[in-house]
Every structure is written in C-alpha cells, then in structure tokens.
C-alpha cells in the first residue's frame, strides 16, 4: 500500500450529520485499481459459474475470472474442478473453446494430454523424461487454490487461507436460498451469454445494480413501455426495504407491478397463464408455507455479493458478474437463470421479460450503461469536484429499497479491504 493512498481517505463519513461521501478518485486512479486486484480480486470469493453449465461428465466451460484464464470441468466421476488454463509444460492454453464436452484436453503446442480431472495422461516423447517425472503432480493442470459452491453457484478464491464460502456469503445465503428454492429440481442457466463492455469503473455497476433510487428517472421509458403494453402490470406499488447482509453484500427486496414467472400474474398472460402460475404458487405454499411462498413469488430482489456478483430476481432472473479491465472500463457477463422444470410457456415469457428490461439490447440496461459512462466522464472534474454522495436514508430506522444503505455497505467493505488500517475522513467542514 503506498503512503499516498493511506493519506487520502476514500470515504468521508459523518454519522451525526448523516453524510456519506465517496472520493471520485477511487473510480479513476490506476494505483487504486492495482490495489483492488491485490486486496479484493486476489482475496475474495469470486463467482465462476453455475452447476447447470456442467451437466454431463466431460462438460467444460472456459472463462476469464479476475484476469485469470480458467477451465471449469466435470470429470468422468462427476468431480467438479477449476484449473488455470495453462499447460504446465510451456504455458499455452490447453482449451481454446468457450464450452463443450471433451474426454481430455490436448495442448496443441507439444501435445500433452490432460484429463478433465487435470491429471497428465500422456506426453509425446515420454521416454525422454524420468519415470517419476509427474510423481509430485507438478505436470498436472494447476487447480485454483479454492473452489466451493453454494446452492449451485460455484465460486473460486485465489487466497488459499480465505474463510469458507459459506462463512464469506454471510447473510446473502438466505437470499440465495430464496432464489434457489424456486425450483424443486435445480435452477439452470438458459443458453446464451450477454457479454459487453462498459466504459466506466466497475464500482459504478455495483452501485447501479442495487440502486432503487434511479429507476423512475433512468428507466422512464421502460415504465412508459409497461403502461403501453396492455395488461403488463399488476396493481402493486413499488415498495420495499434495503438490507446490509454483512461482508459487503447487500440486497433490496421490494414489490413491483411487473409480471414474475415465479409467480406474479399479469393480465397479459391470460387465463392459461393464471392457471399455470396458480399451480406454481400452490406448490411453493406446499413446500414452504404461505409466508415464505409469498416472499418467493411476489417479492423482487436485487442482490449484490461482494465484490462483483449480482443476482437480480426481478421480472426474470439475471446472474451478472463483471471485472475491471482499466480504471474506466469493465467487462460484463450476464446470464438468465430459470427453474429447470418450468414449462415452455413460462420459459418463453421469462426470456421475453428478461429482454424487455435487461441486457444491452433491452429497454432499460442501455440507459444504465449511459448513466455509468456519464458518471465516468463527470469524474474528469474530480480535481475541483472530488466527492460523490451516497447519504440517502442514512440514519433511518427503517431503510427503504430506494435508499442508499446497500451502497454504503459495499463501500464500507471496500474501504476496509483496500485501505486496511487507514481511517476515514470524519468531519464534513
């Protein structure tokens, strides 16, 4: 940690006067990005993929996580693995496909062959190596230091000494349960990845993903669209709460008028749709009782898991992860999550709902992207306009979904990790 970062606090908190400010320098400074990789992306549990992406023995996915090229595999004995996608011999990537099914991976450079369990199977010219060449396993693919899962969500951690994933997830587990419980046989990612780049700092997307305050302005045209589409709304007002889930995780949970495939009916879906959703709801009541069933079916959740996973259970469910590639650029990956057993009817409406709002071609996300990029441009002025404000709702006993508690939970954790040992600025002049 360089001394200057220590001396220039990123947060400015005055609890008494209910002010919470964030230094805009944190969105533009390359030194801070370097420090973020060291103390956040190299230390925290990071989302890798979903169990449903590896359904059969031999299924694999290759994916970049925190600048590492990883290979996520299911072996013949159904063991799940994650390896660094680099040949132990000379470093070439042993897998160059995004996904598929393979008995083994052959590095095309010199022909070393590895099983889906990462073990070296063969090497051309084996007779030129000593017989105990791989006795210590050093010629196998290198596994990630830690790989653990919770309810179908697989995470990696590059810090061997990190706490367990379950401990790390803290209060977020309860909310992941609410989402995973929507299926009796397991949730699945629907085929297709939305992959895009935003010219903005990654923390702006964190803030945006759990921001209930911006919707009315930023997404005015989406609300117009719902009003124009006959029967696309149920008579439910926007209302709900924000929660700090510990370890930097946060969620907003709220009611909203849009339709939910599990299971808030809207007139657009007709009587057949109503019957189907009634059945989905009845099964939830049978499994969990009315109170929890109501919460699963009728509440929306925008959940953030520190540092870069968003699971939004709204008019559809999106799983979104993102990584900074520069102080002012990030790479975003988005998927659609659904109950495996849902009907073709429900799947169709789920995907239709998803595209209406979500993703770079939707009626809402492009405006979020614009907002983030405009913030980044605004930060050009940080010399004279150095602070952002996230004070909304500070000090309230009951926190509304459109307050900014969630962002303060994120920033507090961010500060603890990035500026460990340094104080926050405590006085507003």
């Amino acid at each position: 940690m360089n001394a200057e970062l220590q001396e220039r606090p990123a947060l400015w908190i005055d609890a008494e006067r209910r002010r919470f400010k964030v230094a805009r320098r944190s969105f533009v400074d390359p030194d801070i990005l370097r420090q973020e990789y060291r103390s956040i992306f190299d230390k925290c549990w990071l989302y890798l993929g979903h169990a449903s992406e590896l359904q059969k023995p031999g299924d694999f996915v290759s994916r970049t996580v925190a600048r590492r090229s990883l290979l996520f595999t299911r072996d013949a004995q159904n063991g799940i693995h994650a390896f660094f996608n680099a040949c132990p011999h000379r470093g070439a990537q042993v897998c160059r496909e995004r996904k598929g099914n393979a008995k083994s991976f052959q590095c095309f450079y010199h022909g070393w062959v590895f099983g889906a369990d990462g073990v070296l199977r063969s090497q051309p010219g084996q007779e030129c190596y000593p017989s105990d060449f791989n006795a210590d396993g050093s010629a196998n693919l290198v596994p990630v230091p830690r790989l653990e899962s919770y309810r179908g969500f697989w995470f990696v951690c590059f810090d061997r000494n990190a706490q367990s994933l379950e401990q790390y997830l803290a209060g977020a587990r309860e909310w992941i349960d609410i989402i995973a419980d929507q299926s009796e046989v397991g949730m699945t990612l629907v085929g297709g990845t939305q992959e895009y780049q935003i010219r903005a700092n990654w923390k702006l997307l964190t803030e945006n993903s759990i921001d209930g305050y911006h919707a009315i302005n930023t997404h005015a045209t989406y609300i117009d669209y719902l009003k124009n589409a006959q029967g696309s709304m149920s008579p439910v007002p926007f209302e709900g709460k924000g929660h700090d889930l510990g370890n930097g995780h946060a969620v907003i949970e709220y009611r909203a008028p849009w339709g939910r495939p599990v299971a808030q009916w809207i007139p657009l879906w007709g009587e057949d749709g109503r019957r189907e959703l009634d059945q989905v709801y009845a099964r939830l009541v049978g499994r969990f009782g009315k109170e929890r069933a109501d919460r699963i079916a009728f509440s929306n959740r925008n959940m953030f898991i520190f540092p870069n996973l968003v699971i939004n259970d709204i008019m559809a469910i999106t799983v979104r992860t993102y990584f900074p590639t520069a102080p002012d650029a990030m790479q975003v990956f988005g998927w659609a999550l659904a109950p495996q057993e849902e009907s073709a009817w429900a799947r169709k409406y789920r995907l239709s709902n998803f595209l209406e709002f979500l993703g770079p071609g939707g009626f809402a996300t492009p405006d979020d992207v614009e907002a983030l990029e405009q913030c980044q441009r605004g930060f050009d002025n940080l010399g004279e306009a150095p602070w952002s404000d996230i004070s909304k709702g500070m000090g309230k006993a009951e926190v509304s979904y459109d307050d900014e508690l969630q962002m303060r939970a994120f920033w507090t954790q961010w500060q603890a990790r990035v500026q460990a040992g340094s104080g926050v600025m405590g006085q507003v002049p």
Partner: protein
Amino acid sequence: MNAVAVSRDEVEELLFLEAELLDEWRLRDWLKLFTADGGYYVPATDVPANASPDTALFYVADDRFRLEQRVERLLKRTAHAEFPRSKTRHLVSNVRIRGRSGDELDVGAAVITHRTKMGLTETYIGSYRYRVVATPEGLRIREKRCILDMDGLKPNGRISIIL
C-alpha cells in the same frame, strides 16, 4: 407481387432504403417496411444463428408490438442511451436471395454499422438474414435477424440503436 419474379436489385433497393431510414433516424418510416406480424432479432453471440428466442438468451427479440415500442422509445428524449442521438452508418453488402418459397424470400446480406456518440466510434459487424414478403404494396420485411460476428459486445456496451 410474386416472390418468384423478384430480382436481387429490388431486394437491394429495400435493404438500402432500410439502411438510409435508420441512419436518418426516420424510424417510424422504417417500421412501415415491416409486415403487421414483423419481428426483429439479435441473438447472443454464443448461440446458434438460428436459435429461438423462446429457448435461448438473445440481445433483442422484438415482435411487432415491441418493435413499435422500441421505435417510440428511441424517439424520446428520455431514451437516455440515445440522447443526444448517435450518428450511425449501416453499410449493407453481399446481398443474395438464398431461397424462395410461396410469397417469401430468404435473403442474406453482410453489414457493418458504425455508431458515433460523444467522440467515440464503435463498430458492429455481422450478417443479416431476412424473411422478405412480396405484397401488393411491394416488398416488406416479415423477419429481420442480425447475427453478430463478434465475441460479445466489445467495446460496444449496448445495442441502443437498431442494427
């Protein structure tokens, strides 16, 4: 109008007109080129070109109603992603009639679209696949599908214009 008699020239005229209307932001006129059941699709870049939006994740899957709403949205000041409006140029080439059946033509083309906003220009590269119908009023689009030849949207953070 009979699909059998339609020439590539006539199809090109339709596609070039379409590009012109988009680049001039005459989106309501552009919409008139579609049939009453017309649709517009952009699949994700890691699903098959002929994937169905009922079973796979797309970027865009608009039926006629949603296409009309997309146009209306884009013409509002509150469509923030396109305010101020970007400058675009659709370059359509390699137009070919790939098949004919009944009143319908299967048309393929290549496209490069440049979008400039606030000093930055980004490029979308892809192919078009159209279902074009010969109607008494002339050629109309029943389905337009833009298949991107890209690995995701890099550096384009969005498809806020019509490709």
